[in-house]
């Protein structure tokens, strides 16, 4: 395995980490409208991810930075090509971060309601758009001989990619719902379990169609294995949720995300962004990558820093391991 292959795997790992972690905090954001009965319950939901959402989001920044360093051509084509959707995602992430931090900083109801609405939409829109983006990456887009994206904005909204968007949206919502069942106590926990079943079934239907489509389109033996794992894990997560095994349900919905992302990357390899115009114009791990020297330095960095990150981020989850319910939210917003 050459270094650029290693980095293909590492980029996949970073995106997997991002979708696994921010996946459930997007889901929790969406649940503020889907599950919470009143504003106190919204606060319970928001506070389940309060201490961790920011650390989760860094996985995206790292995926971005690492793509820049390891595959500059991929970084350049992807972000200049998917310009407007990325702009929407960035705006959402900006507003979302501010919404989390500022919502409780003023007592006025209007102020808080506005930020709550913002949290819902800025969680929902990126959860959908990331799926659209990956759908397009895997499916291939119009890339010319100079690696420039020459399609339009509307080309990005094709049926396959839109289905991908629905899959990430529902999958993240499901992931967030089982996370909520695991992290809360009281009535909301019971309702989260019930809702998880409904969303889980919907996710399963959409995900199986999307992944099968991917498999037929560009899959191989390995991606088929990943597909089977993803589907099995999703069904097992549903089963665990039904039996009230919340820890298992969350772990398994996590496995679903890992396997689904793995499948997308497996069907992508050795391309990183296939061209739909001409196979010779596709960006691949070889023609898009950095020099071996840079990749070597980056590998050292990843080898040392990633385990450390996992260690202290894991520790954070352990520190905030207690379930929370409405009784844990101080009546007077402590700010």
């Amino acid at each position, binding site marked *: 395995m050459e270094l650029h292959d290693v980095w293909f795997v590492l980029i996949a790992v970073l995106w997997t980490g991002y979708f696994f972690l921010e996946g459930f905090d997007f889901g929790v954001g969406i649940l503020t409208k889907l599950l919470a009965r009143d504003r106190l319950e919204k*606060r319970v939901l*928001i*506070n389940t991810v*309060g*201490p*961790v959402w*920011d650390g989760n989001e*860094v996985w995206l*920044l*790292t995926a*971005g*930075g*690492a793509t*820049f*360093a*390891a595959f*500059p*051509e991929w*970084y*350049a084509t*992807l972000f*200049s090509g998917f310009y*407007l959707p*990325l*702009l929407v995602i*960035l*705006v959402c*992430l*900006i*507003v979302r*971060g*501010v919404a*989390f*931090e*500022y919502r*409780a*900083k*003023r007592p006025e109801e209007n102020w808080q309601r506005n930020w709550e609405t913002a949290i819902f939409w800025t969680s929902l829109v990126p959860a959908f758009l990331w799926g659209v983006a990956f759908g397009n990456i895997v499916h291939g887009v119009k890339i010319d001989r100079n*690696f*420039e994206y020459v399609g339009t904005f509307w080309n990005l909204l094709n049926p396959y990619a839109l289905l991908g968007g629905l899959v990430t949206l529902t999958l993240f919502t499901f992931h967030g719902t089982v996370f909520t069942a695991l992290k809360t106590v009281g009535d909301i926990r019971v309702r989260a379990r019930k809702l998880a079943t409904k969303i889980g079934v919907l996710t399963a239907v959409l995900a199986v169609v999307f992944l099968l489509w991917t498999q037929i389109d560009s899959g191989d033996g390995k991606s088929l294995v990943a597909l089977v794992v993803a589907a099995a894990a999703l069904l097992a997560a549903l089963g665990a949720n039904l039996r009230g095994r919340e820890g298992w349900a969350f772990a398994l919905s996590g496995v679903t995300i890992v396997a689904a992302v793995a499948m997308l990357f497996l069907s992508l390899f050795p391309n990183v962004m296939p061209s739909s115009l001409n196979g010779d114009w596709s960006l691949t791990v070889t023609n898009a990558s*950095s*020099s071996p*020297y*840079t990749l070597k*330095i*980056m590998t050292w960095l990843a080898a040392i820093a*990633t385990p450390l*990150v996992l260690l*202290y*981020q894991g520790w*954070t989850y*352990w*520190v*905030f391991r*207690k379930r929370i319910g409405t*009784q*844990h939210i*101080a009546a007077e917003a*402590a*700010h």
Partner: protein
Amino acid sequence: MYLALAPETLARWQFGITTVYHFLFVPLTISLAALTAGLQTAWVRTEKEKYLRATKFWGKLFLINIAMGVVTGIVQEFQFGMNWSDYSRFVGDIFGAPLAFEALIAFFFESTFIGLWIFGWDKLPKKIHLACIWMVSIGTILSAYFILAANSWMQHPVGYKIDKAKGRAELTDFLAVLTQNTTVAQVFHTLSASFLTGGAFMIGIAAFHLFRKKHISVMKTSLRLGLVTVVIAGLLTAISGDTLGKVMFKQQPMKMAAAEALWDGQDSAPFSIFAYGDVSKGHNTVELSVPGLLSFLADGNFNSHVPGINDTNKAEQQKYGAGDYRPIIPVTFWAFRWMIGFGMASFGVGLAGLWLTRKKFMLPQHLRVGEDEVPNLVLFKNKALSPKLGRLYWLAAIWTLGFPLIANSWGWIFTEMGRQPWVVYGVLKTSAAVSPGVSQTEILISMITFTVLYAVLAVVEVKLLVKYVKAGPPELTEDDLNPPTKIGGETRDADKPMAFSY
């Protein structure tokens, strides 16, 4: 296509707007993290309540600020790819690495430990909680280091070779990128300017309260911390600025000439403190200048020869081919002065304050004050300043809050615009760096979106800051004074509300 709306122009405006805006929050984040950590350390060591109240007060303002710093930083990570794809393709092999280092080392540090700090008051033992804010502080400084190493490479590319076949620059010596003198000087200068900014922020807000005789004990401590920080950081900023100037003179002679609007080279070149006239025409109608100072700033010798804009332009034409290698002179000329002027004004206010509010040194007994009194402002031995002059000082102290923010912005505008027409000096021109596939409309949409969004958020943020500044330091609760002794918090009362919740 109108030049004003050319993609290159728009992309530059967008980069300028988003980056200057981002950098309003960065220096405050860097310095307030460390200063808050310092205050919390004082609390842990002395158990004096005023330190904990100060920690909570400044910590709150720090959090309001860092939230904006973090979210506006997301754009920075992606806009190279969006608007500057040819730049990204050309330099990604080199420029991407420090960015990845920044994300994987610094951002994770900051973002993970800030969560622990915000929510950890009732979850972590005192010392571990304190360690978290120090980790945040280390994260902010590492972040600055890596991104400045990347920027320094644009100012003075080292440790690379050009691969003609691939049409890109490739890294050959990463250590050179991380340790070259431009990087060292820029890091030194930016960090000291950051502390100047945070110190002035503290002075301004503490003066606001002391002027009204409110929250005296906490604010007196804060004022003192702010004053000391500003004086030390101000000195270091000047020293590092001087170093950076000399490095720049060797590496980018055009920028030095443009800083002074020195059209024709001369020995013992003067530095004008003030000029009025059209600098773009190459002469001033009114000018107040110090002879030889520019030569000293550039080379450490009052008699040295400093090449002018015209000479340098000719030299670069010979080296790089026909073209205009001059930046926009009025911008560089005034930006350079505003940077120094506002920065040093803040330093002056700090120095004056440190003297005026001294506790004992050369201060007669009757002018000394107790712990809970506003200090007298004493210029000479025996008498406090008249109320009028005293008021003037407090007002200056309040206003100084904004000075370094202005200085920082102009500093970046100077160094980035002074490098034009290059994006990577001597290697890649800005005009060759933009995304060829991105349309004028797309850039316009994103530029307008970011500008409007940032403007709205600025209003929200400033209002929130004002609210919390006015509220003053919080009263402490029983829980504040009795932090948990084990990780995860006490388990006695399972239904106890969290100390902090969103």
